[in-house]
């Protein structure tokens, strides 16, 4: 007689392998997981949007023949010297400290070659990034590490950031391994300690105070510099409206898929909004105030391709920022380094312990031997190539939609593949006129 058939062992969808391993890790260590990178779980994103392209009612532009402009002005509201970018893609704020000097230089070289900006981070401005960034945005962060009026004056714009490590309210941490002599000196801290980045600014609370703070920054810089306010995507309508009220020239909105610095896994995965659901409320706030295109909107958080760029612009943004993708472009998580990633207990594509300073690619490290592996000239060239592809792809889509400037893309060019994406992006579900929450069934 045959043996009784055995049911195939079945793992829980709720308690999957990752969840089980995290429970075991927590039980062994008693501390939450800290890592870099943005949310890794599947979130509604731009993949669920499609462009309609031209048809009988819309005429496409000829690729390689008819112009499709990509430039963007930032800071036209109040600043005497607004910024003019050649492409609508900027480099997000990432600190020297979290990144090596070579990585910062690579970002500066690549961005400058493409006529766009880079951004400092929590740790001040280095000579490498100022020297190699033709347009540099200087962040004013809660910690004020490295903040000084000389750098404020030699920046091209100032970004008052309410975000740290993709943490709309959580602050950040730079572990002692990365507090080298130079980082310690720039941050006025003892070498080797865990450096905490504060979650609140020390000298203002709330939008009314922020308005006065911005007035101070304008007075110090004689009203010449554009001033950005960067917020995490949590309440984008009200945060954008309040940023406008506080006097921002530019609002930077950071969705939860982005983030490069270290913070708690639970924070990264469970706080904030995916960018897809954040852009339209922010644009609506600008439109309600009559400030759309007058106060520019930069969005970030999971931008990967030119299609993502085009979709963000079509939803009403003026430009996007890339952080994680820029690091990948210069060599982060390269499969060529698989053996070394394996030695760190991970694999290429999954490495996210950027705070530990052991980055084999020489990017998220302060160890001289590791940092020396990154050739800034090569890194810069790779970033420029990547930015060029993003721009070409966005132009290709814009031309297909009949637009002579990428800013002419509009929500009417888009449809959604899922009900969730239709509701978040406020565009119709493909093949219907239905926009959940906006139009009837």
């Amino acid at each position, binding site marked *: 007689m045959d043996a009784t058939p055995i049911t195939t062992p079945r793992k829980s969808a709720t308690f999957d392998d990752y969840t089980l391993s995290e429970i075991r890790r927590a039980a062994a260590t008693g501390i939450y997981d800290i890592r870099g990178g943005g949310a890794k779980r599947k979130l509604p994103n731009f993949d669920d949007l499609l462009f309609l392209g031209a048809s009988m009612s819309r005429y496409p532009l000829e690729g390689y023949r008819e112009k499709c402009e990509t430039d963007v002005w930032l800071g036209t509201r109040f600043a005497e010297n607004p910024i003019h970018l050649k492409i609508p893609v900027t480099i997000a704020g990432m600190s020297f400290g979290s990144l090596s000097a070579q990585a910062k230089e690579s970002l500066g070289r690549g961005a400058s070659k493409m006529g766009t900006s880079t951004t400092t981070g929590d740790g001040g401005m280095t000579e490498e990034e100022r020297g190699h960034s033709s347009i540099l945005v200087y962040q004013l962060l809660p*910690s004020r590490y490295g903040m*000084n009026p000389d750098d404020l004056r030699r920046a091209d714009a100032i970004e008052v950031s309410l975000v740290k490590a993709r943490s709309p309210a959580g602050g950040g941490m730079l572990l002692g391994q990365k507090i080298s002599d130079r980082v310690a000196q720039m941050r*006025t801290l003892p070498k080797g300690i865990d450096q905490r980045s504060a979650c609140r600014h020390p*000298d203002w609370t709330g939008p009314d105070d922020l308005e*006065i703070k911005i*007035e*101070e920054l304008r007075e*110090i810089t004689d009203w010449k510099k554009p001033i950005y306010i960067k917020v995490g995507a949590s309440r984008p309508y009200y945060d954008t409206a309040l940023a406008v009220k506080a006097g921002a020239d530019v609002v930077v909105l950071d969705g939860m898929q982005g983030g490069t610095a270290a913070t708690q896994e639970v924070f990264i995965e469970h706080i904030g909004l995916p960018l897809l659901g954040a852009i339209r409320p922010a644009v609506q706030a600008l439109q309600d105030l009559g400030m759309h295109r007058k106060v520019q909107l930069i969005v970030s958080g999971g931008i990967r391709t030119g299609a993502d760029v085009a979709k963000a612009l079509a939803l009403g943004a003026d430009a996007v920022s890339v952080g994680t993708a820029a690091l990948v472009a210069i060599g982060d998580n390269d499969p060529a380094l698989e053996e070394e990633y394996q030695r760190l207990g991970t694999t290429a594509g999954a490495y996210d312990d950027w705070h530990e300073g052991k980055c084999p690619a020489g990017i998220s490290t302060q160890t001289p031997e590791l940092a020396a592996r990154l050739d800034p000239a090569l890194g810069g060239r790779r970033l420029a190539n990547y930015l060029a592809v993003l721009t070409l792809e966005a132009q290709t889509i814009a031309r297909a939609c009949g637009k002579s400037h990428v800013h002419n893309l509009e929500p009417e060019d888009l449809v959604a593949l899922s009900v969730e994406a239709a509701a978040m992006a406020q565009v119709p579900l493909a093949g219907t006129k239905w926009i959940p929450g906006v139009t009837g069934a």
Partner: protein
Amino acid sequence: MPEVDLGITPLRELNGTLHNLPADTNETHWIVDNPAGRHAIAAGLDAPLKVEINGPVGYYCAGMNKLATVQVHGSAGVGVAENMMSGFVHVSGDASQAAGATGRGGLLRVDGNASSRCGISMKGIDIVVKGSVGHMSAFMAQAGNLIVFGDAGDALGDSIYEARLFVRGNVKSLGADCIEKAMRDEHKAAVHDILTRAGINGQIDPSEFKRYGSARKLYNFNVDNAGAY
């Protein structure tokens, strides 16, 4: 000496003028009248000027000051001398919250009281308060000296790094990782030096102060210390 009436002259014009004086100017002593609580007066100075302000000022007076001496004959709003790099700021009245916040150098003297978060995240500035300071003063203070003639409110020096705190009166409570430390001769000498620079030496014996600083137990994260936060 030039005298500017802020009831007539726009603030932007005053600050712009002070920022753009030639290096060899003879106009190094300025009087500002009718400040009426305006914000950011004398912010961003970058020259060895003396600016006297006759009346109360709003937020961020002398913010990010370098080299200049700014004297406020009155009280100051939030963030006076915030992120000061060098120079001397003297408030004859009281100061609101976050006085000297994140200051990296120079000397701030407040003759009255300073409100909460005085010296928050200070990074090298010296602050002398002849009155008392409010709660959370010297929060995350990294470097520099805070000298308080009166009392300190709750959670003094919470999460402090390497700043030194000297309080003559009572401390309502100490924040996480802040402890009382021995007041040795070197610390008395430091207090004496700062008071001399502030122009108030001789009024108080440095040995009357108690010293507070970091226990350095929270410098590297340890889950066993989680209850301290």
